[in-house]
């Protein structure tokens, strides 16, 4: 799709969408692409993980079951802590979101892999869905009283009048910041890795050791970022849900 001077091996090449199975429905190109392939991997791996983990369901868990339980309890704890007991009905959604992003980030770190969370359209779609869903939940639970979310609690009237538009704006900007954070983190990390790795080749065996060590370190950093960004995305979703459920 985009042309690069380095003949398809520039730092941006890894983000290119490649059609694997062309599909066209009603004028829309919904081809099965490398992005869809890695989403499939994520779904299949998650399914395998939970199928394998819950096959025997022992009182004392094995490694796989312990992993699945840890993920479950981590996200369940996060949802409960941030949204209370009423928020637990959204736990499967938050858990799905967390796993989808986590597996997308982790799978993308493998050589030659594609990172679907590095595409703004994917992160924006998830963020917008959350924004719309949270707003609907807020209005469904509180009606017009939901607007009191924009009035800071305990603020005098004069300050509240100034702050309310700011709060409203920050509410509207939520999907933007939510989607950009994940997208930018993934994009920057992968570009950085690719650029540094390119230096290894161009600097040769002796001086290439320096970027090699850097890539080594940045890879660990990116593994951390992959987990942290999945956590942050899920955590912010919980905080937004809490606003909609409890108002402040």
């Amino acid at each position, binding site marked *: *799709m*985009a042309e690069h001077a380095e003949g398809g091996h520039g730092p*941006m090449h890894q*983000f*290119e*969408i490649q*059609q694997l199975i062309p*599909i066209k429905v009603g004028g*829309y*190109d*919904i*081809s*099965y*692409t490398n*992005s*869809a392939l890695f*989403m*499939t991997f*994520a*779904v299949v791996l*998650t*399914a395998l993980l*939970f*199928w394998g*983990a*819950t096959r025997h*369901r022992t*009182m004392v*868990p094995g490694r796989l*079951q312990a992993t*699945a*339980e840890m993920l*479950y*309890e981590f996200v369940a704890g996060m949802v409960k802590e941030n949204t209370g007991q009423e928020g637990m009905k959204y*736990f*499967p*959604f938050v*858990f*799905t979101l967390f*796993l*989808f992003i986590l597996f997308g980030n982790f799978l993308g770190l493998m050589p030659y892999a594609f990172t*679907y969370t*590095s*595409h*703004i*359209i*994917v992160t924006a*779609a*998830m963020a917008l869905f959350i924004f719309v869903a949270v707003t609907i939940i807020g209005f469904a639970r509180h009606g017009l009283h939901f607007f009191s979310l924009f009035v800071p609690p305990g603020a005098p009237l004069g300050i509240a009048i100034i702050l309310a538009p700011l709060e409203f704006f920050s509410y509207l900007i939520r999907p933007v910041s939510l989607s950009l954070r994940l*997208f930018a983190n993934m*994009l920057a990390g992968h570009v950085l890795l690719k650029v540094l790795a390119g230096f290894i080749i161009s600097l040769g065996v002796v001086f290439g050791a320096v970027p090699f060590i850097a890539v080594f370190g940045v890879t660990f950093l990116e593994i951390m970022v992959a987990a942290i960004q999945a956590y942050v995305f899920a955590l912010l979703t919980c905080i937004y849900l809490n606003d909609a459920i409890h108002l402040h």
Partner: protein
Amino acid sequence: MPQFDPSSFASQLFWLLVMFVALYWIVSRIAVPRIGEVLEQRARVIQDDLDRATQLKAETDAAVAAYDKAMADARAQAYEHMKVIQADMKAVADKRTADVAATVAQQIADAEARIAQAKQSALDSLKTISADTARDVVGKLAGLSPDAGSVDAAVAAALKDAR
């Protein structure tokens, strides 16, 4: 940047929807209920164990209390028995002591009576001997034969003075 190429948006959104819904189905239908069940079951087993431990501890405490009570009762009973037996033994001992003392006193009294009797008879025979001796001495030395009555009286008077 491939990210801003809108030609791939429809495909990405479509597959995102498909895959996210599939994952949601797996998570909500398989992962969450199954793991939730395991965790709940484990929590229940742990709670049951704790409950049973509490119950067993209560039973143990009750048993210990019963044991302590039985021990205290037995000790008190033994003490009572000992007191009764001691009292009985003391009574028997006192009675025996009294009996022995009475017997001894009787024997002493008898002995004293015999001694007194012996002394009396000795004194009486002394009187007779003295009188006879006096009469013989008087008869031999003075040639007198004093009558028995005056000799006896003189001997009695002399014995009275000697005493």
